[in-house]
């Protein structure tokens, strides 16, 4: 069987979620055969980065071994093949998020760079002192700091949409923050620290009613649910490859073509120019305007393979499988004395952040690690969320498509060890 076929077979011929054969899917991920400290790896840190299926690894090896060259430059055969593969990856991404045009898909170094790109180009060019940017209380630092840099440079005002005690997005409070001065709304689709799925269509509708542009941080959304940028109605959508079972070093900025082509370049260099003379340089349109320099060619190929892989499994199937894990994990963890789950929004992705009365998150993380269970312990690059709930750190189990209920049991058993030590 060639790589990926097992995944395809896992759902073939049956649209019901019962057909999602997780044991078969697990065979696609070489790393899941590894042990840590002599125990089977239980990888529950997918929110930080996901593991890679064989088909992604192989696609990248094949690129390096058989057709690697720089793209968009050479007249030679390899360069043409590499360019075709690179642009094919862009097309895959465009289809994946239902972008109306492939020219709207810009490859960046990651989601962080994608947000910085919008702040540094759209933000610098079109925002004036006194203009307002609205973010939420549960943003990742990468969707806070770029706007603070813009604030310090341009004298704009940053407003924070609140969250409730369950970690839910408070739509009416958000609406009250909006004004004719609101120029950009930048909000996460799924919170990395709490798992909350935000009501993005409503967020977009309310922002557009005031003439504001909306940037969506989709890092934690694209691995877990189908995303259709046209249905959302957003203006910009960003995500990283490595959380979507693809390689590190590449991410995606999707934007509406009219906006992208109105924006000044981000970085200057090769590939982004139409013509250069010492007197005047003109720029290409999107996407190349924003892709100065040699891009992450093989990473793009790997991202394309990752998109193929999750699409073949079906994002609905993946989402249903993970919802089952979330419900099971929430149910089992809730029964543990002294354990408190942070983030109990009604609409939630498969992320369970928790604290324990007996033990600090870091001590929990260390003990779980020795039991083979990888979780994140800390502030998850979302310190304002931690402050909102009055904790310095939480432990976070974030699930992916290859996780199982048995692994939830291992997590619960390992928390039992924490209680043995600290109880």
């Amino acid at each position, binding site marked *: 069987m060639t790589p990926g076929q097992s995944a395809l077979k896992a759902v073939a011929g049956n649209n019901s979620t019962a057909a999602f054969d997780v044991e078969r899917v697990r065979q696609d991920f070489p790393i899941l055969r590894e042990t840590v400290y002599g125990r089977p790896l239980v990888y529950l840190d997918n929110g930080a980065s996901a593991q890679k299926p064989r088909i992604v690894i192989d696609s990248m090896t094949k690129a390096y071994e058989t057709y690697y060259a720089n793209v968009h430059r050479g007249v030679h055969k390899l360069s043409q093949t590499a360019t075709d593969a690179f642009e094919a990856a862009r097309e895959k991404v465009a289809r994946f998020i239902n972008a109306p045009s492939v020219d709207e898909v810009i490859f960046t170094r990651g989601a962080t760079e994608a947000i910085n790109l919008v702040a540094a180009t759209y933000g610098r060019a079109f925002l004036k002192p006194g203009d307002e940017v609205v973010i939420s209380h549960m943003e990742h630092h990468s969707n806070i700091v770029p706007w603070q840099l813009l604030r310090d440079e341009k004298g704009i005002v940053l407003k924070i949409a609140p969250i409730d005690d369950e970690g839910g997005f408070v739509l009416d409070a958000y609406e009250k923050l909006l004004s004719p001065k609101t120029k950009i709304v930048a909000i996460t689709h799924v919170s990395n620290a709490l798992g909350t799925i935000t009501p993005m269509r409503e967020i977009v509708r309310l922002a557009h009613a005031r003439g504001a542009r909306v940037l969506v941080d989709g890092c934690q959304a694209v691995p877990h649910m189908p995303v259709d940028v046209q249905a959302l109605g957003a203006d910009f959508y960003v995500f990283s490859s490595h959380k979507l079972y693809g390689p590190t070093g590449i991410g995606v900025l999707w934007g509406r073509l009219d906006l992208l082509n109105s924006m000044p370049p981000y970085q200057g260099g090769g590939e982004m120019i139409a013509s250069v003379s010492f007197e005047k340089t003109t720029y290409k349109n999107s996407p190349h305007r924003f892709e100065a320099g040699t891009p992450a060619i093989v990473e793009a190929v790997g991202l394309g393979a990752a998109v193929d892989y999750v699409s073949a499994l079906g994002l609905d199937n993946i989402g249903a499988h993970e919802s089952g894990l979330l419900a099971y994990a929430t149910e089992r963890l809730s029964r543990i004395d002294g354990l408190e789950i942070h983030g109990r929004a009604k609409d939630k992705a498969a992320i369970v952040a928790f604290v324990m009365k007996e033990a600090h998150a870091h001590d929990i993380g260390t*003990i779980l690690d020795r039991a083979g269970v990888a979780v994140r312990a800390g*502030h998850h690059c979302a*310190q304002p969320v931690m402050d909102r709930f009055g904790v310095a*750190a939480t432990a976070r189990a974030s699930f992916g498509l290859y996780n199982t209920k048995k692994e939830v049991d291992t997590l619960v058993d390992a928390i039992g060890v924490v209680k043995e030590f*600290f109880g």
Partner: protein
Amino acid sequence: MFDDLRELYQEVILDHGKRPRNFRCIADANRQAHGNNPICGDMLVVYLAVDGGGVIRDLAFQGKGCAISMASASMMTEILKGRSVAEAEKLFRCFHEMCTKDDAKTCENADQDTLDRLSMLSGVREFPVRVKCATLAWHTMHAAVESKQPVEVSTERGQV
């Protein structure tokens, strides 16, 4: 099972973590520093009252963090009280080596009882990412005695 965990989380350490000693502010401290471990969110303030002869008359801390950082701070206050600043600095280097190297050399002049107490936390060697939890209080103490102004230290500036 979990032998190295038992080595790290010994009873004494768990006890200091739960009921830290000298967990208070020293109103007339003449040396103090703020220590911060931004990755874990550990933070603490170390207060020292140093007399004219360079002897630490009183030593205390306040803060929050994991069991290792709290226990280490608590045990440090017990070990260093009554010692000279010069001795404290020597023991800092000794403890730092214990936490990071298998054959600590800078500990030669320390008495056995002190060594025994310092070595309680040396199990952290097996947990490299936790070394900074164990050394945070000591780095902070070191920063406090070096400067007469209140200072801030962070484990993310290359210190471990």
